[in-house]
């Protein structure tokens, strides 16, 4: 206050160029990787394949298959930014799909069915948040437990088998949500299923939430240093409840997508899906120790996995090879990230 008031510009000595380079990689790295994968497969497909990889029809398939992963991964992004993890997301999403299928079969009206599905997701998330926040058990353990609980609930609801729904009972929009066919409307608007647009809308909302809202700041603060957040009077328990509930809502949405893809609900189908969601976040630059993660990164992460799956199909590469590739990419992404952090600290 007694000082001459001017902010002195002071560049960190030495590593500024390197630091800046990493910073660019930080924000665009995942997108760059996505572009690389797309270009790589396009070229490979034109040489060895049938040149169908880059066709609009295939792009539509990739997008439709990526949308549910992306939506749930966006919820996971928020949870991971706040320093948490949700291993129950996979089984919770099929629990939601099962609720959807059962209530449709039981003849409830469509708004009621959707509300019940979304509420189920939110309730799953709230349960996680409550256990983590109030019992102070690490999120990894809590959600490991609820993962099996949700699986069991879904099985009970489905009476141990798959739930089939009469086609006539499924509303048209739900059938078209994840349709790979071009929609009826044409013209200047890109020809993609409505579900993809919905997912993009959700992404924009989450991005705004993370960047421009008080809640968003609190998420970063808690994930970055929970004691600081507490010191600053942040209601840590409340924020955790909220973020898990929000993530639950998005998981329910992912459940709706996957139901609309296959039109049946198989309770065991969700096992292992959560790892895909987490992988999307991690490939996208999210840090499992909290405080870091971006919407753009997560979308790119989800898309990378979608593109690899589809590209391998087109090139008739075995499913097992795809798994190995995705595994390598996850490890590479995290290695790069660690390296980046270390060189920033220096």
């Amino acid at each position: 206050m007694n000082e001459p008031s001017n902010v002195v510009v002071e560049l960190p000595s030495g590593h500024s160029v390197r630091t800046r380079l990493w910073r660019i990689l930080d924000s665009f790295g995942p997108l760059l990787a996505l572009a690389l994968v797309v270009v790589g497969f396009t070229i490979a497909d034109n040489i060895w394949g049938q040149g169908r990889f880059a066709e609009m029809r295939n792009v539509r398939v990739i997008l439709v298959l990526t949308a549910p992963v992306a939506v749930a991964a966006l919820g996971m992004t928020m949870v991971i930014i706040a320093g948490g993890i949700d291993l129950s997301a996979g089984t919770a999403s099929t629990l939601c799909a099962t609720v959807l299928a059962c209530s449709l079969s039981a003849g409830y009206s469509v708004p009621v069915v959707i509300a019940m599905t979304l509420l189920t997701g939110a309730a799953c998330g709230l349960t996680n948040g409550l256990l983590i926040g109030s019992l102070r058990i690490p999120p990894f353990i809590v959600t490991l437990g609820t993962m099996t609980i949700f699986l069991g609930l879904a099985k009970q609801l489905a009476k141990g088998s798959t739930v089939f729904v009469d086609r006539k009972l499924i509303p048209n929009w739900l059938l078209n949500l994840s349709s790979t066919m071009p929609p009826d409307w044409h013209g200047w608007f890109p020809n993609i299923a409505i579900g993809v647009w919905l997912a993009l809308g959700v992404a924009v909302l989450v991005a705004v939430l993370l960047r421009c809202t008080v809640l968003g700041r609190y998420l970063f603060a808690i994930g970055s240093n929970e004691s600081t957040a507490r010191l600053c009077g942040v209601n840590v328990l409340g924020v955790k409840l909220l973020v898990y509930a929000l993530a639950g809502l998005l998981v329910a949405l992912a459940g709706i997508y996957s139901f609309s893809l296959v039109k049946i609900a198989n309770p065991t189908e969700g096992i292992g899906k959560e790892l895909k969601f987490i992988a999307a976040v991690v490939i996208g630059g999210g840090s499992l120790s909290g405080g870091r993660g971006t919407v753009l990164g997560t979308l790119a992460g989800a898309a990378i996995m979608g593109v690899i799956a589809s590209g391998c199909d087109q090139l008739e590469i075995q499913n097992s090879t795809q798994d190995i590739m995705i595994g390598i990419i996850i490890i590479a992404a995290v290695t790069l990230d660690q390296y980046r952090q270390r060189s920033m600290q220096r």
Partner: protein
Amino acid sequence: MLVMQGVCKSFGATQALSEVSFSVSPGEVVALIGENGAGKSTLMKLLSGAHLPDDGSMQLAGRPYRPMGPNDARRQGIAMIYQELNLAKDLSVEDNLMLGREKHRWGWVSRKEQRKKVVEILELIGHPDLSPTRLVGQLSIGAQQLVEIARALLSDAKVMIFDEPTSSLPKKDVDRLFAIIDRLRQQGIAIVYISHFLEEIRRIASRFVVLRDGQVVGGGPMESTSDPEIVTMMAGRSVENQFPKVPHSIGVPVLRTQRLTGRVPSDVSLELRKGEIFGLFGLVGAGRTETLRQIFGLDKTLFGTVELADERLRSTPRHCLRAGLGLVSEDRKTEGLAQNLSIADNLTLSDLSPVSRFGVLHLSKRTRVVREWMQRMSVKARSSEQSIGELSGGNQQKVAIARVLHQNAEVLLLDEPTRGIDVRTKADIYQWIGELAATGKSILFVSSYLPELVAVCDTIGVMAKGRLREVRAADAWTEQDILSVAVSNE
């Protein structure tokens, strides 16, 4: 055994040690005394190999001693017993003792041989009662310390350095520790004993050395020196005009604690008035930080109340903050600031309401507000979005203080606000504290640095072993008085 001569060490522009000479012979216990920040820990870090001296020489058992790192120092025979113990809590006593030097044949641990050695060493320190199979985590702190000492003996330590070993021990364990130190001495081990408590030093050491501002200012045999003489050596420093003062007046009581008791503080009752700067002094472990944390609702209160303007405060940080309290943590790294968030995030986290509407942030407004604070407090940074971990300690502290000002706290709890920052920023902080008091804010100022407390505060309270021992107006204290209350055991 160990001789240091003319040792100098500086960190950047600060001279931590200058021309320090120090020696200890086999079978001798030398006490190293000094206020916090006098250079004791730097000296220890040189001995333990964590840092290398800039100048001067060190000798161990007649040979030049130049440790390449902590491991090398240990191998050469220097063992440190720290305040925080370095043990693997989930391993047994035996496994801890033999960790890294297991007796084995082709990777198979030969338990029998190990057990023999362990029993031997436990007998040597006079505690064959300690079972080698107990898990270390289940032992009391005092017993864990025994394990640590035994481990040092196993590695053939010639010099053992005890750094405030009694700060977390109950009295019974202190007696036991002293008995062991005596045994070690008789076996010809050279011992350096660091402590604040003169009584303890008198019981165990034959000679003392006083460090102040990185220099040896006195020393001699314990017997021929009185406590007041030693205290004068520790404190004796002329106060220069590095403490700007701002005239301010004191009003009605604002914050009052009554018989506040928690894990460390016990029965702390104090009263803070409007416009008052209340200093809280005490040595490490006296419970000052814990008292602040408890007032702010960060630590659990077992007993007692905190009242703000005659209203009882709910003890959660959120309620305290809303009621007008603000805390600057002593630990910027792990608590005070979220190191990988930006300046803007850190500065506004405690109160986002002025820069948001219905939960949506007004980003440009926030940047404006943050820039204003950065200018007022002359924070040096590239931009308000720079990550706070990249700033210097002084600039980080400015942001931490700006946060409390931004939330417009009426009562400021400052925990060691000048620790680890440069002299100029320190002077700035004293100036702000004065200005804040002049605008009617109340400040509770915890510090281990006596000169600043005496210069800046209106009232000073001294804590020792969790209790608030005495409160007087600042001009009714001398530095010697304060220190002697702080080192008293009763």
